[in-house]
């Protein structure tokens, strides 16, 4: 059963120039992205910086107004499209979807005590009883394995990992069914990353959460996600179950990303695919396949003809003209 179904999501940012702010073009940050997340599932959204994955996640959270498309969320068997809703109409849906932020330092208001921070969503959404709120905060702190005595402390007294736990507790306050985690561990030390990831996985098991996990670190993604969606220049280029994507990638860009994953065994050295040239300008994307200027397999067809997302079966979709013919290198299941 799907909880989130995104259809043809687009977010274009207008570019204005000059004194009169004339419209000269658009940055197509998210260009026609569709995917769905099943209940209890983790979908990872990966790509390099600037590919639109954060914009997509913020559109889904409706922190941004999408240019077009549908964001269907299913709550208690009832499906609603969030995209056309006004701010006030969104409020009842907010409690069902919450966000965990990348930077644990800027995502907590330094002027509020931890107890108040976690209680804020409760207060806003109508839990007026002070002692009830404090009881819930205690429960939440316990859930993320922080001592309840920390309630009266301010965020400056905590480490990055602890702050992220506080952020997760705040996101869980309203009992959401969907958590959008925007690079929740990329600002943390590697040793702390593992703890937070295990916490997220543990919470998923206990509370039956669904995650949309935005990340750029594929070794983390491999560990947490059920399915992976790869974005390039605002578009999805490949979407597949995690195992399939890692072992048999079908898009040259995915192959390049996978080759960048560090290997724990130094002897198992593998050729790294270094992509030539910079990522293209989203305001002026290349003709044909957006990836063709950097692709070592590019043909004339790639330069002129736009590829469509084609279904290869078993939930594996890819946006490449040559998906069926290329023999791409994945990473072994052992890694």
């Amino acid at each position: 059963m799907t909880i989130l179904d995104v259809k043809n999501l687009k977010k274009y940012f207008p570019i204005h120039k000059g004194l009169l702010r004339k419209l000269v073009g658009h940055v197509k940050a998210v260009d026609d992205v569709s995917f769905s997340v099943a209940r209890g599932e983790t979908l990872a959204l990966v790509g390099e910086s600037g590919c639109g994955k954060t914009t997509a996640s913020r559109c889904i959270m409706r922190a941004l107004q999408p240019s077009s498309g549908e964001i269907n969320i299913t709550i208690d068997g009832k499906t609603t499209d969030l995209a056309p809703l006004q701010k006030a109409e969104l409020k009842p849906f907010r409690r069902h979807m919450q966000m965990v932020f990348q930077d644990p330092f800027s995502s907590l208001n330094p002027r509020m005590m931890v107890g108040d921070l976690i209680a804020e969503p409760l207060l806003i959404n109508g839990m007026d009883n002070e002692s009830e709120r404090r009881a819930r905060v205690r429960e939440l702190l316990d859930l993320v394995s922080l001592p309840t005595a920390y309630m009266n402390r301010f965020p400056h007294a905590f480490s990055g990992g602890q702050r992220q736990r506080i952020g997760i507790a705040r996101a869980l306050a309203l009992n959401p069914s969907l958590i959008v985690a925007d690079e929740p561990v990329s600002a943390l030390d590697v040793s702390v990353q593992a703890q937070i990831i295990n916490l997220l996985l543990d919470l998923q098991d206990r509370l039956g959460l669904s995650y949309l996990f935005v990340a750029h670190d594929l070794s983390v993604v491999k560990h947490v996600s059920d399915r992976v969606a790869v974005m390039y220049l605002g578009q999805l280029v490949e979407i597949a179950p995690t195992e399939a994507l890692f072992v048999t990638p079908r898009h040259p860009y995915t192959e390049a990303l996978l080759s960048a994953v560090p290997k724990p065994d130094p002897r198992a050295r593998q050729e790294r695919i270094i992509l030539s040239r910079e990522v293209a300008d989203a305001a002026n994307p290349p003709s044909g396949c957006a990836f063709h200027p950097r692709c070592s397999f590019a043909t004339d067809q790639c330069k002129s003809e736009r590829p469509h997302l084609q279904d290869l079966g078993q939930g594996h979709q890819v946006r490449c003209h040559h998906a069926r013919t290329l023999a791409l290198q994945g990473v072994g299941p052992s890694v």
Partner: protein
Amino acid sequence: MSTDQTSREEQFAVATQWQLTWWRFRKHKLAVLSGLIVIAFYIIVLFADFFAYADPHATDSRRSHIPPQTIHFFDDGAFKPYVHGLTQKRDLRTFKLSYQIDPDRKVYLDVFAEGYRYNLFGLIPSSTHLLGLKNAQPEDGIFLLGTDLVGRDLWSRIMVATRISLTIGLAGVTVSLFLGVLLGGLSAVYGGVVDMMIQRLIEILRSMPTIPLWMGLAAALPNTWTVIQVYLAITIIISFLGWTDLARVVRGKFLALRNEDFIAAAELAGASQFRIIFHHMLPSFLSHIIAATSLALPAMIISETSLSFLGLGLRPPAISWGILLQDAQNIETLALAPWLLAAAVPVIIIILAFNFLGDGLRDAADPYG
């Protein structure tokens, strides 16, 4: 880990923003000292007449240009402060009055003495002053800083001038603050055309040379206006440019905060715009506003002083530092009565104090930065 250290860490962990700010500010010794000086000056503002001992408006041709007087603290080895009496002599060739100390006449000082009548805070009638004389003859007087040409006591006049000079700064900053927060906030919240218009207005205002602008505006004040009306008008004139800095600070802070994740988190939790602005954004830059204000104040004080000095601001019978300094404008007075320059000393002290205080506050304002 010792328990002392643990308790200190515990204290840090639960410290509010204001506590952290205060701890950081406390380390800036010069700023703390400046803060005390500023407080002392505003105590004088509140109790100006109490600190004065002679009616600042009372003229006396027989007391023209009396030089500053020395206070003797000990009489016969006991602490009994006194001043000597003065005898007046006119030099028959230059017609200049000169004063000689009469070593035999000792007039003892008294604290909380009776003096001229005034209204404390403009409401409570009183006649108690910090200093006075015991059993004084009508010709006796205290002249801590001497007198001016028409025999008004300079010390008392400086005390009373402090009231106008420092409150006009406060009033000016209040108006600036209001305009700055309002226009800066609008600029940031609405963006687009509103933002562009407000920013260009700020640039135009800031590119104007201040003195000619003020002179023009001040010259437009009708001279039939009362002291109070002129006071208010001058306040508005000097805050005319003062708001631009504050508007920029507020706009910058608003824009910076709008992109903070904790604002997004509050939005996603369903917080109203009102709650976001007043619960999350305003507390975050309140400390910056306070620091910017303390840096804007000395500029206001200087503005009033220079305008009044040039004769374009307040006019006698109002008393401000600028008006007192007007008396010291020509070289002749300076040669004959250099003590009239004493009115510049409080200006220098308060400006320096405000600047150091502002620096200290600015450094301490963001304990998380």
